[in-house]
């Protein structure tokens, strides 16, 4: 089972990358689960035609009980991707990090992986590893590899560096390792050079180079990923190529 966590600065396009990657894995015939780990709970919306799944935290709030079946907190989207969102507490109250841990514990109790038997699990995580809850997706038993999404913008690279350092801090714990960088272009000056310098300095490969694309925005307006909307486009091909690369590595590992 290929288990990936996608991290990066807020607003950098993690959910776009994650859901396109999920759609690409699905197009390649994989059984996929995508778990959004951001209180905004908007990770999977473009896999669901714009019709969101109820986040786990909302379910707990509305029903005052824990879910008894996966179906109560999951929806199936494009290509059969099972979509789950942790959601978050009432804004300004509670603890979002604890919400992620609680959700993971619930999913384990509901035997999600044993029942669904996915080939690929994707965790789309909040912008930074701000506390233990946001490191939960890279704990042992969850994601084994991390993809860091960044552009060439200074603050995106700053966040990418923080994430990389945080993951390195957990080396002795058996946590996930950073697989590489996904360059999500914003068309800033000397973008590739800046990101490559960061990647080289940290010994990380750039595993995908996603161009800034109006097609992504156009299909998101329709509640779709671009991989669903038109797999023949160059930008869709980038996601499909990344999915193939990761699958091939998993098969030969």
């Amino acid at each position: 089972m290929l288990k990936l966590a996608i991290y990066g600065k807020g607003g950098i396009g993690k959910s776009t990358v994650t859901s396109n990657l999920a759609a690409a894995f699905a197009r390649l015939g994989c059984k996929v689960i995508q778990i959004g780990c951001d209180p905004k709970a908007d990770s999977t919306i473009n896999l669901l035609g714009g019709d969101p799944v109820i986040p786990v935290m909302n379910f707990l709030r509305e029903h005052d009980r824990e879910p008894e079946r996966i179906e109560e907190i999951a929806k199936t989207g494009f290509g059969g991707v099972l979509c789950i969102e942790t959601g978050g507490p009432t804004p300004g109250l509670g603890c979002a990090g604890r919400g992620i841990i609680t959700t993971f514990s619930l999913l384990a109790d509901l035997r999600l992986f044993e029942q669904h038997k996915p080939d690929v699990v994707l965790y789309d995580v909040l912008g930074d590893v701000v506390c233990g809850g946001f490191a939960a997706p890279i704990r042992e038993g969850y994601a084994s590899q991390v993809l860091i999404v960044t552009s060439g913008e200074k603050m995106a690279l700053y966040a990418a560096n923080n994430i990389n350092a945080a993951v390195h801090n957990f080396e002795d714990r058996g946590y996930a390792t950073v697989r590489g960088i996904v360059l999500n272009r914003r068309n800033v000056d000397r973008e590739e050079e800046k990101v490559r310098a960061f990647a080289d300095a940290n010994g990380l490969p750039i595993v995908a180079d996603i161009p800034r694309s109006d097609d992504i925005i156009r299909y998101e307006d329709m509640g779709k990923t671009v991989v669903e909307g038109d797999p023949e486009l160059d930008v869709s091909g980038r996601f499909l190529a990344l999915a193939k690369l990761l699958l091939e590595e998993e098969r030969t590992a």
Partner: protein
Amino acid sequence: MKQTARIISIHAADTSGVCSMLYELGGMVVVHDASGCNSTYSTHDEPRWYRQDSMIYISALTETDAILGNDEKLIADIAAAAKDLSPNFIAVCGAPVPLLAGTDFPAIAAEIEARTGIPAFGLHTSGMHSYLAGASEALEAVVSHFCTEALPRTDAPSANIIGATPLDFSVNGAVESVIGWLKKSGFELVSCMAMGSTLDDIRRASAAHVNLVVSSCGIAAAELLRKRFGTPWIAGVPVGEKFSARLASALKTAAASGGCALTCAERDASAPGRKLAIPGEAVFSGSLAAAIEADLGTPCRVLCPLEAEDRLLAPGDLRIFDEDAASAAFAEASGVIADPMYAPVCPPDVPFFRLPHEAFSGRCYRKESLNLIDHPLPWRF
């Protein structure tokens, strides 16, 4: 009031279960909790504290440590202490504050092991489950780490006792009586997990022909030994003359056939009519119910207030999740055998027989504790 105890006690928490199970094994047990809480796990719930050395510690977790995620301080403190103490292993587990902070104990244990070279394991306690959950996970971890070699079976029939802690058996000679009963029944003891045996004894557990599970907290470890070495297990406590004989026979059958049995649950409490109610841990209470029915002819029903798999309960037994449920079940009973702390919720017209349970009332009634093993039942109904 649902899931509430206004009058009666609650059972010892999972942290107490960990400390109790690991107490005698020469390991260092660190509960990540606020300073002062050690007295709960190690004094009120632990009859061995004043007469037998152990290495149970509290990390003295502070608000600042919790907020800052000062795992490094915990790890460094444990590594420094371990250097002086040279424990057989290090177990680290949590309480409610680490639960809320999401502390990753298996990961912390991995760091400690990497730093000290001493086997370490993290346990998922939180103070939110009963002692059985903690004791079960702790013993399973010990078996997982130390019972790794498939030794040849002993020449003579032999057994391990699995799941013995003072929380269920106090320190009143009961465990020694189980060992004596095993010998009378034709089985040499390989190890008793985890009272009266060393870690080296437990390392030899795979040499036994059969395992006797005396508390539900021993089932996970027994299952692990069955998977690793094919050792069958029987669940039951030798109380009463006829039930003890049945248990001895089940042990011999299991040793010969390799099949497991839940002898304590081979009863039927579903027939109508008032019965003697026995609230408590499922393996012991089920065994006692079977013993009373066999020796005294009094129908019994187990009331289970603790975590227990369905298979540990007989038809007609009842799960009770709060004191209202206990009180209602007592009102329908012909009598109640229970820890004295249940007495206030027993209707006055229902006879109440006191049987202290350390996991429920701690040291409050320790002087009254009864060793029922291999002794005639002390009641007439």
